[in-house]
């Protein structure tokens, strides 16, 4: 710790391998307790279904996709992944407070682009990620991380394809980041 504190201009992050071992142990613990992996995009899906159901209940039931997640017993928000995602938010807040990274609202972007560009691109990226995660049956945490860790064929497939295609596209969007 004191090594990190001595240099103020250095980011105070964990050693990535330390984070990785912790994350691996967490995945193990999650599988040990619940028999399933971690996830994130499922929570957003629940949110989508909930809003559609609130504003247009009939529509949610008619929709071939959303109707799968609508039930009479309880709201779609009453879901394991929603609670877990809440936890992710608070965990991030906790860590941010601890390491002094919680500051006023800001946008992080490469000096070559404006905030506006960054936000528009982030929105497009989010939309694409949202669509892709539904086809891929999960995002990087649900499918790629937990899936690969449990030796699921689909998980490894998703992991390799996400990173592979991101590398393939990286060259064209280099201005956004460096």
């Amino acid at each position: 710790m004191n090594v990190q504190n001595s240099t103020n201009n250095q980011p105070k992050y964990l050693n990535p391998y330390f984070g990785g071992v912790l994350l691996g142990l967490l995945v193990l613990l999650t599988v040990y307790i619940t028999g399933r992996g971690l996830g994130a995009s499922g929570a957003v899906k629940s949110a989508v279904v909930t809003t559609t159901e609130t504003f247009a209940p009939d529509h949610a039931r008619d929709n071939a996709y959303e109707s799968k997640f609508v039930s009479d017993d309880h709201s779609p928000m009453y879901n394991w992944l929603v609670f877990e995602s809440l936890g992710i938010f608070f965990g991030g807040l906790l860590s941010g407070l601890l390491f002094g990274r919680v500051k006023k609202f800001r946008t992080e972007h490469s000096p070559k682009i404006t905030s506006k560009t960054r936000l528009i691109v982030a929105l497009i990226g989010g939309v694409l990620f949202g669509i892709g995660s539904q086809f891929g049956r999960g995002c990087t945490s649900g499918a790629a991380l937990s899936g690969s860790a449990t030796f699921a064929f689909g998980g490894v497939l998703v992991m390799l394809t996400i990173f592979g295609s991101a590398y393939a596209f990286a060259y064209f969007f280099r201005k956004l980041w460096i």
Partner: protein
Amino acid sequence: MNRNYIFLTILMLVLATGTLFVNKTIKLKQVEPQQLLMEIVQPTRYVNTDLVAKMIIQNDPSLELIDVRSANEFGKFSLTNAINIPLDSLINESSLDYFGIPGTKVVFISNDDIEADQAWVLTKRLGFNSIYVMKGGLNRWMETIIQPQKPSDDSPLTAFETYEFRNGARLYFTGAKIDNEETGKVKVVVRRKKKSAAASGGC
């Protein structure tokens, strides 16, 4: 700095290589032999013919009779609603679907009780619960239910009660046979277990 990383690398490699040695054999989901032996020596798995008869008469929906005799023998005679799984095909994938259905009691039947008991041991090894053996098998079924013996006069009262029940059961299984045949044939309820009770999840 690099020394620690080298050490970490070696550690991780050793750990990963270790998995090769611990998971050599493909493990099947089975009851541990010692546990199985403990269950075997307890006679709780035996049910008598009277109980089976009573359950059939009461149309108990939880009763599932598995007849382990050959298909030929089964064709000649079988108990009401019994399912035929010859002992040879017991451990086939399709046969095992009949076991482990929540809320059912599986009772094995054979000519005597030996084969039924063998089926029980094999199924138990695979970890299925709520399985029983009809003691005495169909031979005793014939001796007790179909041709009950009148107890001698100095027998206790319960013996007479059993005798009366068996007489009634005999009427049900033989006299009422004609009526029963149609309903019995129609009502071959094939219950099969739903696949995989694994945890659901996803992203």
